[in-house]
């Protein structure tokens, strides 16, 4: 027998990093006896090491709770967690689409941040009821009344009686639970209609295969149901359905209004695409739920094993990660400087960092990564359009008619005292000012249009340092725009190093060329000969630095007692050389390729 849909509440929590989302979720699980306190790992929802260290959620996740309300009834709460980073905007939108309501958590000492705002808008767009909650009222610097007013002014929802809580101490958290019952609508849907289940997340399990995390909108699904993925058309037989209690717990069926998982011996998460609709093969729904999009890689970089012998290990590791991450793409590429490796595509810079970090940590690989690149559209004189994700594949300037680069709409929220320095930063990064709104007397919301290329390097870090950490940032892709771009090459001792090639705006090429050449001069060790480092656009040299030759590389003393020691020393030095990449005649340390991107040219 299925649960009365009128007693179900499906909701998610929206919050800025560190505003207390995971802590609140933990308290809710404790209060509803979903998990015993002693079983709680700190912050149960963020379960990956990297997630915990960075304090962000990468994958969505869900948990079912039973709440005994003061009206005497027991409600089923399905809390669907959302990823907390702009790279995963689409995943956030699908997780929100699975809910009827959202709890908006705002830090009483900070106020609304850009990221929160973007997600609240997503929630409102998806027709969710928003329940504002002011958190961290136990802190001395808390200003709950100011924050409530800000919520009303900026988001335009009433916040006068928003619960003021401390997720840390548990103060008033029970009020949030009871307000969820009142604020979030019960799901509607027809349990007898053709099946419509939204995939809001997926996960690969070694035993069950790829699992779809779903919200059922219409119909019922149970073991043995033959299902069809509406976007891909693939069909599978369901082997298990279950709920998050909070770990996987098989149930007989999932029906309209419920949240759970579906296992169907699916080999890869490529078949369980987030946003897709699952229906019955024998009685398909007329149309899929709206909003499905193919995930597109926005940022690309070359990933190479530091030791060429580990190419196969890297491939195996990428294959494994791909099982669980449909948004990761990669294909083999060869670099003259770095040998065999892969060009990998990511949703954004954070996604890239997470993947490379997981490759190094979980698979114990030593990697060389090249500077990230966006995807450029190149229109040649003979009327072709070429899509370039690796700068060294850019055709000759003489063959190019024009180029386009991806552009984003950026929202920056900041205390007004930093507006000047932030506008300068945006200007330096080719930003075009759109508008500025005062949220309060001393806080503003800035809108800029920026080339994606300019924000994938260290824009976010610069923003944080210029605003002493107070500014927050969010962006969405807004298409492509024509741009005067050039290919910037680097030559070491006269030989081009393809792994260092980048595409930059022509006005920035000189500064960038100089900065990178200077950086290379610092990271390339002195060798037996002088090494000219040149930055070039086509055949034109725009910057030059020189690594001086080693003056003395000879041991002053070598007598009878030193021979064995001397041989050992030579062996050790040779080992050190192995960590270097040979670019023509020049040995370059593996990390030089990445260090180059830490430059805001």
């Amino acid at each position, binding site marked *: 027998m299925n649960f009365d849909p009128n007693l179900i509440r499906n909701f998610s929590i929206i919050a800025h990093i560190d505003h207390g989302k995971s802590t609140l979720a933990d308290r809710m699980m404790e209060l509803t006896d979903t998990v015993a306190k002693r079983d709680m790992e700190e912050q149960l929802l963020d379960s990956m090491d990297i997630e915990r260290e960075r304090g962000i959620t990468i994958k969505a996740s869900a948990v079912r709770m039973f709440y005994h309300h003061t009206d005497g009834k027991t409600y089923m709460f399905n809390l669907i967690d959302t990823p907390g980073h702009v790279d995963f905007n689409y995943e956030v939108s699908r997780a929100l689409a699975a809910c009827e309501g959202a709890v908006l958590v705002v830090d009483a000492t900070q106020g609304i941040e850009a990221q929160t705002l973007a997600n609240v808008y997503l929630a409102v767009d998806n027709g969710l009821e928003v329940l504002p909650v002011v958190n961290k009222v136990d802190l001395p610097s808390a200003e709950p009344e100011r924050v409530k007013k800000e919520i009303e002014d900026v988001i335009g929802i009433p916040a006068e009686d928003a619960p003021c809580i401390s997720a840390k101490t548990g103060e008033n958290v029970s009020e949030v639970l009871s307000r969820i019952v009142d604020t979030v609508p019960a799901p509607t849907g027809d349990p007898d209609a053709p099946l419509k289940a939204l995939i809001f997340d997926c996960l690969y399990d070694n035993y069950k295969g790829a699992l779809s995390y779903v919200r059922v909108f219409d119909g019922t699904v149970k073991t043995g149901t033959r299902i069809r993925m509406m976007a891909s058309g693939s069909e599978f037989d369901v082997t298990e359905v279950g709920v998050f209690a909070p770990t996987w717990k098989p149930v007989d069926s999932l029906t309209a209004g419920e949240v759970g998982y579906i296992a169907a011996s699916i080999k890869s998460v490529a078949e369980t695409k987030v946003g897709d609709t699952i229906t019955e093969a024998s009685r398909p729904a007329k149309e899929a739920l709206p909003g499905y999009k193919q995930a597109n890689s926005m940022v690309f970089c070359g990933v190479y094993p530091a030791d060429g012998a580990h190419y196969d290990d890297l491939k195996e590791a990428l294959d494994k990660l791909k099982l669980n991450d449909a948004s990761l793409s990669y294909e083999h590429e060869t670099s003259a400087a770095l040998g065999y490796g892969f060009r990998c595509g990511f949703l954004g810079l954070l996604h890239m960092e997470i993947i490379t970090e997981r490759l190094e940590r979980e698979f114990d690989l030593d990697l060389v990564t090249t500077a990230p690149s966006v995807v450029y559209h190149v229109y040649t004189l003979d009327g072709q359009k070429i899509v370039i994700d690796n700068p060294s594949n850019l055709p000759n300037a003489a063959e190019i008619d024009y180029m386009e680069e991806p552009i984003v709409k950026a929202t920056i929220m900041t205390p007004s005292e930093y507006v000047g320095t932030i506008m300068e930063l945006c200007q330096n990064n080719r930003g075009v000012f759109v508008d500025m709104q005062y949220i309060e007397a001393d806080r503003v919301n800035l809108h800029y249009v920026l080339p994606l290329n300019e924000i994938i390097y260290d824009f976010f870090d610069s923003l944080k340092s210029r605003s002493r950490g107070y500014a927050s940032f969010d962006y969405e892709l807004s298409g492509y725009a024509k741009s005067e771009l050039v290919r910037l090459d680097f030559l070491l001792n006269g030989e081009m190093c393809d792994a260092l090639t980048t595409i930059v705006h022509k006005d920035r090429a000189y500064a960038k060329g100089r900065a990178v050449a200077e950086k290379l001069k610092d990271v390339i060790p002195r*060798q*037996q*000969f002088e090494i000219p480092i040149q930055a070039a656009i086509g055949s034109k040299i725009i910057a030059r630095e020189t690594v*001086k030759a*080693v*003056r*003395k*590389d*000879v*041991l*002053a*003393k*070598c*007598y*009878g*007692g030193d*021979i*064995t020691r*001397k*041989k050992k020393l*030579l*062996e050790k*030095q*040779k080992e050190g*050389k192995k960590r270097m990449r040979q670019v023509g005649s020049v040995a370059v340390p593996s990390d030089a390729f990445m260090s180059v991107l830490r430059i805001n040219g």
Partner: protein
Amino acid sequence: MIGVYVHIPYCLRKCRYCDFCSVPIDETAGRYRSALIKEIALVKDKYPGERVKSVFFGGGTPTALPAEDLCAILDAIRDAFPLEPDAEISIECNPKAIGHEGLKRLFEAGFNRLSIGLQATQNELLRRIGRVHTFEEFFATYQAAREAGFTNINIDLMHGLPGQTQDDYLDTIRTVAALGPTHISAYSLILEEGTPLYDDVIAGRETLPDPDAVADMEDAGMDLLEELGYLRYEVSNFAKPGFACRHNLIYWHNEPYLGLGVAAHSSMVEDGFWVRFSNESNIPAYLKKLEKGKLPRAERILVNTFEQMFESVMLGLRLVEGIDRAAFSARFGCDVIETYLEAYQKNDRFGFWDHSDPAYLRLNRLGMDHLDSILRDFRERRLIDFLR
């Protein structure tokens, strides 16, 4: 024909940069002399009739022991092995660690080459590196050595010392050369881990001149030495014509030598095999073994032909003369350039070889500056490829 090295591990006080096996002179010194003489008796039986062309007493500061002990040890060697009539018999000494009488006794006992550690003529620099003597004390020792009869004298110098300028170094060379020794060793300071100087530099209490400045110093010093008639014949060694140190040439020619005393290393032919071995490296262990009547050996390795070849290259390229290709072929049955063709060619592109005499594989001055990187290239040659 071999060389014999005798290690005397005592000093009046250890210098701040020194990582050699040496300790301040203590009560073990008497037992040490007996142990050495016992070791000589043991090796005499192991290598009967081995002819000796050079003897070298090094340390430490050999003259930290009484001259009579040193003479007794030399006599023991003479009794054990036939010494060539023109054998070079060297002893290292430090100013302050020997007087006029002692020097005289050494000369009379047959020591015919003296090596004096000076390092620099500026007393402030000597103090900073922990030398126990002043320049004036060195000068007195040098005069006493001449008076005692020594004509073949080496003086050790260093560059790259804390606080040292190029002028300091060149002044040192001029002052020393004016005394007319036959040989000058000029070493670049090596900062060795575990020494007080190393700790001071790491902790920022002491600073060394910048490496480019040291290289300038070294180059200027080399020019000056040659100008003053001291010809470079090895990376750090300069001599008047005919006065290269014959004992040290044994090492650089990769010829056999027998090391006696604590921590001494040897390369000898035993049962037709080339072996390298070392003695116990601490004094109590060394004494204990000998007092039980056993050879004080610690490690012993067989050196195969391939490794011997590399060692011959590693040592031979230190010499300005380079490697005698005919001698190399006679010893190993292959030509040195053909054997290491890849490394040879790579470094030829850098212009590191001196092509003036095709009978030798010889580095030019620039190549000598890059010796270690050249050796790393030679080291790339693998035994397995060589055997093919």
